[in-house]
């Protein structure tokens, strides 16, 4: 027993160590990529007016933005800040990255949850329909539909839908100032409706395909045949035995999609004026606010890694086989 625990602890420690190394790698990659791209905060904020700056002014600016220090010092001082809870301050909004993220992350989270719900609500019932008789008309139609939904670029769909609604119904809630779910739930949900729909439409096809494949595979399993032979009613068989099992890979896949959406659905956020994490990174990129981009990317990566780590650790608790490995 004691030995098993030591091994388990060892594995867990290794897994946590890997997670930390991953994050370190992400931070270094972001840091390097940002600096490989030409331009810096001075050209970004002054544009061509930077030519009017005197050498004394440029020196003062470089000191102000910390550009006069060697790269390794810049990196370490940023990392040191992060480790002591100082993620940096945006020169644009004069808010700390922590404050900015506290504002933007809930919006991104909400949009991600709603988009996944839309994707599931569209994808799963259609998958059931399609799997009922593979190769027949409903199946072919849903296949065509999902191909179409996958191939329409979301920015095009978003713009078209928004323009059409404004023109015909005079309804475009996203033109109002953004309201958070707490401030004004009614307006907030209206504002989330279109982006969630657009994102959901792009999530539905993979959901549909995964669910359809899983339903077909499970239907051929021995236990289904046994259940049917035992006289389980068809409806109960379809939903309790087949669909529920088929949803397991769908849940796994939705989790992955959710992870991607956490990084910010930039196009939807941009078009529908949702102040989320994606726009926070974009703003940082445009203004060359290195600290904003580095810290926000690190936060996103941390969430991703943490979710993965937790899943792994939970597997260890739940599934004895993993624990032994």
């Amino acid at each position, binding site marked *: 027993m004691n030995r098993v625990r030591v091994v388990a602890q060892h594995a867990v420690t290794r897994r946590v160590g890997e997670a930390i190394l991953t994050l370190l790698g992400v931070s270094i990659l972001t840091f390097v990529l940002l600096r490989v791209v030409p331009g810096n905060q001075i*050209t970004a904020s002054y544009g061509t007016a930077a030519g009017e700056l005197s050498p004394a002014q440029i020196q003062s600016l470089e000191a102000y933005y910390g550009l006069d220090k060697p790269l390794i010092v810049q990196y370490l001082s940023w990392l040191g800040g992060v480790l002591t809870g100082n993620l940096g301050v945006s020169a644009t909004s004069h808010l700390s990255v922590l404050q900015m993220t506290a*504002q933007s992350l809930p919006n991104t989270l909400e949009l991600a949850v709603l988009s996944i719900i839309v994707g599931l609500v569209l994808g799963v019932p259609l998958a059931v329909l399609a799997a009922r008789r593979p190769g027949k008309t409903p199946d072919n139609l849903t296949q065509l539909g999902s191909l179409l939904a996958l191939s329409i670029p979301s920015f095009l769909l978003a713009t078209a839908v928004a323009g059409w609604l404004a*023109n015909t119904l005079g309804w475009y809630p996203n033109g109002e100032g953004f309201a958070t779910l707490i401030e004004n739930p009614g307006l907030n949900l209206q504002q989330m409706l279109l982006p969630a729909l657009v994102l959901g439409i792009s999530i539905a096809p993979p959901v549909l395909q995964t669910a359809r494949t899983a339903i077909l595979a499970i239907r051929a399993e021995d236990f289904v045949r046994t259940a049917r032979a035992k006289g389980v009613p068809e409806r109960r068989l379809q939903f309790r035995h087949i669909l529920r099992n088929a949803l397991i890979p769908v849940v796994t896949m939705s989790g992955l999609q959710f992870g991607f959406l956490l990084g910010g659905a930039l196009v939807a956020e941009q078009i529908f004026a949702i102040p989320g994490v994606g726009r926070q990174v974009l703003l940082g990129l445009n203004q060359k606010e290195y600290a904003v981009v580095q810290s926000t990317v690190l936060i996103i990566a941390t969430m991703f890694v943490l979710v993965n780590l937790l899943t792994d650790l939970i597997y260890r608790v*739940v599934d004895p086989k993993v624990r032994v490995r």
Partner: protein
Amino acid sequence: MSSAAHVETPQAHHPFPQEAPVIKVSRPRRRALVAGAAVAATALLLAGCSGSNKAAPNAGSSSNKTLVFGITADPTQMVPWTSTSAQSIQVLSQIYSPLLSSNAQNVPVAGIADLPKVSSDGLTYTFTLKKGVKFADGSALDSADVKYTYGKIMDPASKASSASFFASVASVEAPDPQTVTITLKHPDASFVSALDSVNISIVPSDVSVDSLTTKPDGSGPYQFVTRTANESITLKRNPDYYAGKVGAAKLEFRIIPDDQSMVSALKTGSVDLAVFASPVTAKTATSNKVKIDPVGSLQYHVLQLRAASPVLSNVNTRLAIQCAISRKDVVNSAALGAGDIMGPITSPQFKSDPNDQPCPTQDLAKAKSYLAKAGTPDGFTLNLLTSTGLYASAVDEAQNVQAQLGKVGIKVNVQTLDSNAYVQKWLAGDFDAAIAQNGGSTDPNTMYARYFTSTGSYNKVAGYSSPELDQLFAQGIATTDTADRKAIYKKISEQLVDNAAWVWLFTPKSYIAVNTGVSGFEARTDASLTALWKASIS
């Protein structure tokens, strides 16, 4: 993904009892999750639907009191003297007042100070401040604040992009609270024209610059209330505004990054005013509720040629390029008609005649003969720099120029960079030719001395100077007589086009979309918001 499913599913339903407990624990949980999600989804969607009827009228009535101005990006700076982004200028022009203002013809007029008395030697400018002008914090705006602000701008530590406006200033004095005296190092007739710029607005001397970045404090028509990053900036009416009663109780700058989204917001009335660069977008916004005001610009689009780079050092080569290009064609096909062809100077009082140049229209035969004179009758290869991020039509303009020059055998390689990379190369003068959109000014000296005098801060970018030009520019600011000045700048303009220093293309138009509920709005050149304070909303 689906292959993993095949492995997992049978396990979950494995008939052997030892795994059963695991299943029993996880299954109900999963069911609860799914059920919970479904309930939440339904609730959210229902709330969304029912909310739509209630929220709309609320929003409508609140926009009656607040004038909403749509902008596409968060303002990047909040201190007047470092502000260069269009959005920062728009917002700060409503919060702060510069010393002078300007009228619809872009001529400086009295602002918080009257037009200055200039001494006979042209060196001393005396300004009298209006009485009763206050900052938002309630303190009086007096000469000490002007002296402090201008001192800050001239201090390198402030990193002011407007420091160059004061290049000829020797000292700023405040002999009494209502009087400001500015002494110049040498006569500079262009000095007054810069004093209406947002970038040299007056800030209070007793408030730290740091605090101004989060809580702007000025004497403009509106006062800062609140800002939400990436969402909006809200201002309220300044009851003590020196120029009169401000039109709206509140002014909100709302950030809507996407143009089409902005169009929808205008049409549904949630945004009252917005500015578009593209005539096509402006057209889609036009409806019975939205009117479009096209306005001209002092800015200009130009094909910059660097005479300093070997490939363009021969004047005949540059003239060949001028003659091969139809400016009309560039405007109509690349800029979709949104511009007017131009000569170098756009300043209203000194405007160049667009047709006063060696080739006023495209003349391919003449271009060929210039090429022959330059010793390259079959043309040559030219690298042309342009950018995707600076303004919408920059790449199209480069491609149009490429096609036109191709007709006389000049092979153009278009190099397209993002705006940061472009700006870096541009500032370093690291290019042969470039498509650029440069700022204009009400004074021609402000426009071009920095480019075309041998000591100008952008001379490396312009790549052209001559003793004649140096002398003409010096004369231009040494004399105050407007007629004399006009003659001098006409000569400068001729020097520039006769030597084809650059090929000046057109001044762009912008399109101001105004909701019909807005009254009293005056559309100004460059979509300047100097007169926005008069606009009210019904």
